[in-house]
């Protein structure tokens, strides 16, 4: 392992992210904030939604922002750099094993996902005031880290598996169903009148992200048990890191 090279690879990604900062901010926050505004403020204030829906919504929006940011931050550059511009080749020739470049991509994606998740909280809080949070700091930190890792590793696995022509398909076939069936806008227990669906959505890792954040931010709402959340998130993390690294390795050499 060559830390200087690894550091330089991270510095490159940080530099590019800073350069595209404004665009990244719009991309990350515009959609969740509009959602928070419509569902958390307009619908609640006009009486279509109960007051407490605001607190229920916040963890879900945070999960969406993190997943979307992490996947996007890793998958999009990987797709472009491998297929179209080939610009990743210069970094593949840096004196470090190819898989460390993949690890670097995951870490850069995690950092962006964490920033996205953590910025949503104060923004949503400002927009939704008053919103009741009962934060469990340790649990919250652990869940956000696990969610960030799974979003970035998932981005790597997707980015290495999807063709440039299929980016649109990736979003409509993978991310959109994940978000709608990810217990982001409702707690998992709300699905109890759809017993089959309630079982099926358990294969969706986003369910554990939303439920885990709900458990550590607003525990008064029904949520999956902490153990189930941690075990599932850990499982998805390991699985996606494994798949992502494997796919990256095979893609980086022809």
């Amino acid at each position, binding site marked *: 392992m*060559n830390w200087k090279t690894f550091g*330089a*690879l991270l*510095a490159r990604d940080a530099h590019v992210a800073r350069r*595209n900062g404004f665009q990244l901010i719009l991309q990350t926050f515009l959609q969740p904030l509009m959602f928070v505004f419509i569902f958390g403020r307009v619908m609640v204030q006009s009486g279509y939604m109960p007051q407490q829906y605001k607190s229920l919504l916040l963890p879900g929006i945070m999960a969406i922002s993190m997943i979307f940011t992490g996947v996007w931050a890793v998958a999009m550059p990987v797709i472009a750099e491998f297929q179209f511009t080939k*610009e990743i*080749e210069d970094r593949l020739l840096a004196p470090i094993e190819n898989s460390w470049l993949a690890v670097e991509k995951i870490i850069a994606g995690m950092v962006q996902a964490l920033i996205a998740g953590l910025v949503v909280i104060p923004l949503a809080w400002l927009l939704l005031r008053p919103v009741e949070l009962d934060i469990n700091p340790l649990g919250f930190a652990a869940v956000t880290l696990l969610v960030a890792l799974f979003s970035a590793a998932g981005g790597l696995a997707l980015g290495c598996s999807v063709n440039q022509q299929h980016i649109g398909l990736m979003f409509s076939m993978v991310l959109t169903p994940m978000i709608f069936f990810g217990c982001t806008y409702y707690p998992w227990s709300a699905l109890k009148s759809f017993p089959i669906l309630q079982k099926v959505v358990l294969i969706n890792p986003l369910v554990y992200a939303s439920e885990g954040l709900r458990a550590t931010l607003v525990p008064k709402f029904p949520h999956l048990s902490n153990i189930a959340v941690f075990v599932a998130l850990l499982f998805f993390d390991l699985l996606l890191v494994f798949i992502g690294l494997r796919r990256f390795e095979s893609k980086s*050499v*022809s």
Partner: protein
Amino acid sequence: MSFLRPTAQEQFGRLYFRPGAQNLMAVGIRTVDLRKVYNSPPPMAAGTGFGPRGNAKGSKQPKGQVAALDGLALEVTPGEIFGLLGPNGAGKSTTVGVLTTRVRPTSGEAWIGDYDVWKQQVAVKRLIGVVPQRPNLDFSLTAHEILAFHGAYFGQGSKERSQRSAALLEKFKLTDRANQMVRGFSGGMMQRLSIARAMMHDPQVLFLDEPSAGLDPQTRILLWEIIREYNQAGRTVLLTTHNMEEADALCQRLAIVDHGRVIAKGTPLELKASIPGGYLLRLRFGKQPELLLQRLQSLNGVREVRSADGAGTDVYADRGGSLIPEIASLAATSGAELNDVHISEPSLENLFLHHTGRSLRD
């Protein structure tokens, strides 16, 4: 001393020589029985033009498989400029890919100095610099940043990075573009920056895949000059080309590659001397009776006569233009009309034609 033109080593001492043991000895390249079979069409990075060749007669590959390298053996002496010459799809880029850790060989060995490319990749990556066939510059960065980050990947400190980056941009006449994003660069500018980037970490072995493709003649000459200087500083250079002139002018030794094999190697002079006679006369007759071919063979100075299907005939001979009247009168007495004549002097193009029956430009 000061009034003399500086030698290459003095001129580039600052740019190419860093304190360290690595500079003491140049590094060679060796491949043993290298094979590469693609199961799907090879990616762009590994060259182009493989298309129909995979189904050439005699191919034992199942459908869809393409043998890009078929037992390629090379030996590049430390400190020389070595050229791989061949048409598109001959396997040049795949060879470079294998030697630069980008294409995994199906079998065989590839060595850079004492390192096995596919067992000690990181050590090999430290020794090599690569200029790809298609520019693969980092589109999110400016020209200066591309060089600086490349230096950082190789562990250079920030002062060293900016000095080297400035020197290389100057050398490749890109100083005024240093702080522009490369997205808007012309093809030639991208190519120059790619070469500067490959030299940024002062590699012992420099690979250039079709380095002068897309460069205007002036820039091409500048590039040749830079490659020669780099070589004189004790570095090994391997370049691929399908340009005869470039191979002839630049390379100390050459290997001619076709269908993934080396079909001839030596210095440009040796190779050219191996063409029978040296001159090639490409003739085209209205029709060509067998008798005419036999008579051509018996002309004074003719070494070899080859007739392709149709009306084309290649005559290898010791002399060129002075043969034409004799050929014309032979054709007249044989009842064949001489429609077209093309005379070429001894060249690598003729050599390639002689070995493969095809022109390099085909």
